């Protein structure tokens, strides 16, 4: 008896097509998201550039993030702080106009959080700032970034862009600098 697989293939072809299309679609969607919607460097409501402020104009970090030296959180400057300069500076640029829009409507700017540690970690900026640790040690070369991006400090001390903070990275630095109680669980998890 002559058996042919052709009829079977004919039947299977639409299903195979479907599988191929779905796989290609999945990869395409995943790639599109990863490329155009970066999670570690989201597009902010105003294209604020740390490069212009902290880099080109050398404004100290603590000038805007005033809370860092006395509070667990570094704090985002109030809209009034931005306006304080930009009533005079670069008033015609489209992004500054955007800023003035928020100001005139008395609305806060909904900045998207980039640097974060989980809620079970008790991290405090105050301790680190008072220990004279450069902001860049943890946040990377912020003064070169047009758009802020997740950065952490690798075990070898270099900044690793796109990598969030992990416990091992905190510990490596604490060990290196022989921080008092720096490896005690309760120092950070309390």
């Amino acid at each position, binding site marked *: 008896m002559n058996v042919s697989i052709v009829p079977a293939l004919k039947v299977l072809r639409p299903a195979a097509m479907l599988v191929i299309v779905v796989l290609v679609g999945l990869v395409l969607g995943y790639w599109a998201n990863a490329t155009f919607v970066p999670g570690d460097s989201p597009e902010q409501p105003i294209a604020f550039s740390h490069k212009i402020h902290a880099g080109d104009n050398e404004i100290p970090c603590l000038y805007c993030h005033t809370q860092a030296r006395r509070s*667990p959180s570094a704090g985002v400057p109030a809209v009034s702080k931005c306006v304080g300069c930009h009533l005079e500076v670069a008033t015609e640029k489209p992004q500054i106009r955007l800023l003035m829009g928020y100001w005139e409507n008395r609305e806060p700017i909904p900045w998207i959080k980039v640097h974060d540690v989980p809620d079970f970690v008790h991290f405090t900026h105050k301790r680190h700032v008072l220990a004279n640790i450069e902001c860049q040690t943890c946040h990377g070369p912020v003064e070169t970034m047009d758009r802020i991006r997740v950065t952490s400090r690798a075990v070898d001390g270099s900044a690793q862009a796109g990598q969030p903070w992990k416990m091992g990275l905190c510990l490596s630095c604490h060990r290196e600098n022989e921080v008092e109680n720096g490896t005690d669980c309760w120092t950070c998890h309390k």
Partner: protein
Amino acid sequence: MPNIDRREFLKLVGAGGVSVGAGFMLRESTKHPREYLIPHVVAPEDISSGLSTWYNSVCSMCPAGCGISVRTREGRAKKIEGNLSHPVSQGRLCALGQAGLQALYNPDRLTAPMRRNGEGTFEEITWEQGLKQVGDRLDLLRAAGRGNRVALLTTGVRGHLAQLFESFMRQLGSPRLLHYDYDHPHTLYAANQQFFGEDRLPYYDLQNTRLLLSFGADYLSNWISPVHHSLGFGESRQGPADVRGRFVQIEPRMSISGAAADEWIPARPGTEGILALGLAHHIIAEGNYSGADRDAWMAALADYTADAVAEQTGVPATTITRLADSFVDTAPSLAIGGGSAGNHSNGVDTLVAVNALNYLVGNIGQEGGLVFNPEPAGPALQQHQASYSTMLELAEAAHHGEIDVLIINGTNPVFTLPPTAEFESALAQIPLVVSLSSFLDETTALADVILPSHTYLESWGDDFPEPGVGFSVGAVSQPVVSPLYNTRGTGDIILDLARRMGSSSVMPWQSMEEFLKYGWQRIYQRGDSQTLAQGFDAFWTSVLKAGAWGETKSGNTAFSLNPDVIAGIGVAPPEFSGSEDDYPFILHPYLSPNFHDGRGANLPWMQELPDPMTSIMYGSWVEMNPLTAQQMELSEGDLVDIQSPHGQLRVPVFIYPAIMPNVIAIPIGQGHGEYGRYAKDRGVNPIQILSPQLEPVTGSLASSATRVNVSATGKRVKLVKTGGTSRDLGRNIIQTTGGSGVEVSSVSSNSIPITEVTS
């Protein structure tokens, strides 16, 4: 190229599209969820992100007036603690006070003014609309000389808000300003007036006493100032057994204070005063009182021999004489009375008898005894709250059409008055009922206009605790957060209404804050030269910062008894509503430690907090002696109908060994028909079946004087509770040691063993 027909092509396009989306979302789901950093538009000076700011203020969850410290972050209240520098709370706070946050953040808060429309439902209005409607009516009535047709019914408030209410009503020419709280100790005030000639509460120095006899006062959970009493109790309990204070609790149902006492003595309900006089008789008869008026006392107390009193109270004569002897021998000692003992038809006489006991052993004006408070430093106010009869008069006036406007602030009489008062139908007769409540409680639900107040954490006020702590204390209640909703402070609403009825020349203040500062000027003037040199602003700032103001000026220490009082001493047997045959049980309604008089029932923390004595949460129950339950063949969870001459409730049984067999107890606080999602339709309200039995001197409700019968329904429910069995089951959990020389009282028919009953 394979042949694809149109249908096949569309299928593939569809599947491709969906899978691109799925791939996109797959990547998205691996990302850290997006969070925002919302900055201030203009940074407030007192807020540092990530840092706590503490404010001192005053708790308003019950009338005790504890000082509180509230932790706020980024302008939101996060935690309430007791204020360390406030003499009443001294850094401590009860569960209800801690749950004040849930009053602030309660999802059922009234968020804007409302008016009842033609269809009988509430619709939102603006403040201008609401205030205009009420203000115009008040102005009209006042102009027509009919201001006395306005009544203001408020929860018990003190300090400058009370003064504001008084001036407001004076401007209207109305005497109908009523402060009403269910648990106000009317009989205690009357007894102190009769015996001491002081219409104030004295300070009970629990901290320094070595023997406390409490006649029905649950001083650790609800009576007057529980946080302060708990501090005193804790202090007194320090030290070894022969040094520390002993506590004896006399009550028909063991309360938290009873459980904490060294000895719990059940006397027949309403005979607590007779027992006190039995003790007094024994003290005099034994020659332990040597005052000049000894003979007068002996004559007045002739009938109260230990045997006669034992007969009436059910407490063995040996216990009476032993208590009397140790009350004399232990110094300092203190007797307090209140709670259910004061809520009988003989309430005032009972509490006078307790005062007499203190007098005979010289506890008055003594450290560790009873110390008189000085005049409060705040505005001089009429202390009396409206009694049950006064509320009846108000309801009657409303039924006769004599009330045109009723303004209600913070009190909920529809819930806390028995239906026999007919308060609900009285409200229907009043053309304009205005509620200033923060919540839609049972009374507010019947209002015509709701002008919602801030919660206490958002508003200005002050408080001069009553009773004080033996010296003058005051505290300013300041907002700790900015208002969450479109509500206003009670004082601000009243001032606004006063302006609208043309009283701004007499009440010129623009806000409660301004009025408070004006009032505190007078307290500032009392200060020493150093305070005065600083100026008022510095004084004000320091009062707000400290959260308390006080001066070490004590009250009246010399006390001489009016001899006429002695002849009048005597306690009649209590009268009960309902015959013993038809209604064999005495209903003992008690204030829930969680909900107070029901005001805490809308706080989920209080709902889920197990009752300290039974471990039950979320519902109501009736406590019944094991012996009674056995006779009626009832067990835990059996639903029973409790019937009084005036109503009926259905509630599950909880077997409670520490209650007299002929008494059943139901906690007050649950059984709301309104008051938000957490309170509504949960449990029963025993006030609803109380008989209108009065205490004749004060006209207050004798709320412990209702008889009931109990009938099984055959249905049962499972009680929600954390406790398993209350038996030891050989686990040796409860270990006992020998007593400190205390004679073990012999078992009488009223003594209830806590272990298993097998009869």
